[in-house]
């Protein structure tokens, strides 16, 4: 998994704080421990030394009441003493005897060397033992001091340092998050600006005045890039509009002039009548090619304004088929039957009626060219998402089946690409002759918030499925005074 820059900055800050607090805490802990222990050790040695001289004085005086002596020494110090005299050991209390002295220490002291040892007993208590040989009276004196108070102090200190370290680490993480947010904020401005530009708001720019001094370069070059982009898009849009105008003018003249000739058709000789027929047929084709190409270039420029009207879907399909059959290039057959599922009879959809008619014309022409003609056109409900109430999420599907060999699953998305001729290459393109027929179907459907796909019909032919979101059904009658709703929604509210 790849960590984002924000997470990485946060992690580095957290890790830094952790290392730093472990280091400082460790140094503090061991220094304090060392000094406290050294202090206790020297105090213990001093006390043991003075007690040892007391013992020597007593023993020199011939006193052999060891327990009395040791009890006297121990009184009020919290320490315990062990005395070796003439190879016998005497402890100051029942709990302290020869075995309380660590063997190594005992061996060393009985050998004649004074020694000190810090250790932990089997019960876990920290103790310090000081052993002093008293050669003058053939004795050795040991004193054992309890270090559990020091132990406790060190535990509290350790806990405190641990908590401080944890808090420091958390603060480091928080600081890291804060810093990464601060650092990334200019980038999120850039992101939202880029998003707005991608969404068509070409006037969006970053505020160079408000930019971080370190990022002025980025801001300036970003703005320069958008300027360039805007200039190019506008130039392209102007070019399209110019081409559109330039092509339409001669087509208008041609169309009007051919119209005049057609009015006088009966007075023309037969040869001229045939020539006129060719002229007017190809003029019609030419007009459609031009308008298809312009439609595509407009879609590319993102300058399609669409006016969606809420209409009954079954009426829409029936009317589109009836009218569309007359707009087809090949007029060899009657309009195919439209089968309407009773469930969807009253359903309403939002469409541009003329675009929808062109969609059906293109599909019917495609079926004529590649699929042996249309067999059935049907209107039915799309899959029911179930969850939502009313018509939210519901789709209505219009299927156009043909009698051809069907379309290979591998080609089913490609057929909607521009100029795609498929495995049937060599044959003429779709009815428009531009290879744009199905690409325009997809384009029109998307503009109307719908979609198109192709699958197999039950007879093995191709089945084109148009789907549109359902808005409502007919059995309602509410007065709605947000009156310009339809116009406003489509942005033609001038």
């Amino acid at each position: 998994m790849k960590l984002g820059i924000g997470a990485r900055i946060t992690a580095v800050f957290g890790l830094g704080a952790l290392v730093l607090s472990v280091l400082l805490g460790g140094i503090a802990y061991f220094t304090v421990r060392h000094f406290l222990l050294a202090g206790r050790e020297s105090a213990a040695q001093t006390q043991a030394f003075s007690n040892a001289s007391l013992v020597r004085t007593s023993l020199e005086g011939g006193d052999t009441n060891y327990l009395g002596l040791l009890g006297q020494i121990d009184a009020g110090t919290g320490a315990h003493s062990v005395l070796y005299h003439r190879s016998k050991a005497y402890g100051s209390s029942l709990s302290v005897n020869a075995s309380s002295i660590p063997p190594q220490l005992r061996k060393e002291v009985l050998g004649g060397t004074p020694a000190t040892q810090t250790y932990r007993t089997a019960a876990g208590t920290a103790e310090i033992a000081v052993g002093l040989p008293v050669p003058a009276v053939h004795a050795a004196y040991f004193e054992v001091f309890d270090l559990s108070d020091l132990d406790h102090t060190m535990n509290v200190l350790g806990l405190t340092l641990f908590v401080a370290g944890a808090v420091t680490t958390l603060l480091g993480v928080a600081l890291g998050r804060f810093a990464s947010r601060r650092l990334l904020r200019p980038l999120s401005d850039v992101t939202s600006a880029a998003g707005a530009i991608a969404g068509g708001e070409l006037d969006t720019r970053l505020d160079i005045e408000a930019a971080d001094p370190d990022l002025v370069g980025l801001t300036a070059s970003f703005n320069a890039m958008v300027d360039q982009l805007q200039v190019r898009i506008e130039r392209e849009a102007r070019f399209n509009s110019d081409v559109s105008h330039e092509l339409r003018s001669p087509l208008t003249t041609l169309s009007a002039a051919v119209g005049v000739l057609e009015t006088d058709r009966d007075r023309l000789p037969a040869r001229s009548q045939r020539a006129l027929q060719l002229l007017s047929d190809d003029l019609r084709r030419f007009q459609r090619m031009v308008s298809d190409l312009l439609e595509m270039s407009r879609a590319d420029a993102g300058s399609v304004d669409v006016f969606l009207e809420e209409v009954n879907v079954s009426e829409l399909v029936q009317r589109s088929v009836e009218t569309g059959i007359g707009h087809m290039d090949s007029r060899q057959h009657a309009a195919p039957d439209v089968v309407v599922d009773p469930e969807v009879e009253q359903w309403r959809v939002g469409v541009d009626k003329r675009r929808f008619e062109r969609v059906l014309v293109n599909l019917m022409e495609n079926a004529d060219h590649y699929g042996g003609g249309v067999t059935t056109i049907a209107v039915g409900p799309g899959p029911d998402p179930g969850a939502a109430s009313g018509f939210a999420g519901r789709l209505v599907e219009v299927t156009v089946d043909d009698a051809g060999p069907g379309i290979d699953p591998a080609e089913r998305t490609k057929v909607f690409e521009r100029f795609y001729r498929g495995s049937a290459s060599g044959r003429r393109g779709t009815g428009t002759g531009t290879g744009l027929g199905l690409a325009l179907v997809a384009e029109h459907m998307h503009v109307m918030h719908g979609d198109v796909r192709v699958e197999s019909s039950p007879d093995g032919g191709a089945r084109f499925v148009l789907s549109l979101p359902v808005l409502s059904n007919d059995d309602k009658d509410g007065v709605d005074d947000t009156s310009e709703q339809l116009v406003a929604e489509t942005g033609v509210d001038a």
Partner: protein
Amino acid sequence: MSGRILVVEDDERIRSSMRLALEGEGYEVRDAASGEEGLDLFAEAPTDVALIDLMLPGMDGFECCRALRRSSAVPIIIVTARSDTHDVVAGLEAGADDYVTKPFVAKELAARIRALLRRARPAEEEPGALTFGDLQLLPEQGVLRRLNGEEVHCTRTEFRLLCELAASPNKVLSREQLLDRVWGYDYFGDGRLVDVHIRRLRTKVEADPAVPQHILTVRGMGYKLVP
């Protein structure tokens, strides 16, 4: 059917071919190469229908429409290069009655003109006089006036639209029905014609066009007139 047509179009070839086509349909045609010239010709002699291209040098088609509308209720058809732009709505807002898209088929243009000329004449089935709000609609006399006698000026298309709504008060008429009855369009007529004309009408008959009391929108269905 005869009628006097004024064509305002800057492209000389289109102008000539339109003249040929329209004269072939039996109309009397005068043409102008600019908006200014068009307004002069309009002032000189009576005109039944004006055809105005939106892209004109100098005074553009929108301005030309507005100038004509200030002095006249003559039916206006705008000629536009594209149907899916704001141009159509802007042209209709400027006072046009209908539009055609270049390149148009001569027959289609002739059909549009016929529909407008038909409307310019008294219709056969007119509703009786209807009073709503402080307005009185007298279809037979072609008059809409306030109860204080002041006449409300509207174009013939607006008047026809109001009469169609008034012929069946409180009943919803769909866009398709209105397009058919007022403009003579089939199912594929442009609903924006109805929407913009309704909007124009509201500015004339409603006290507050933003909160209409008489010409109501029934969402997704159409419009109805409530007296």
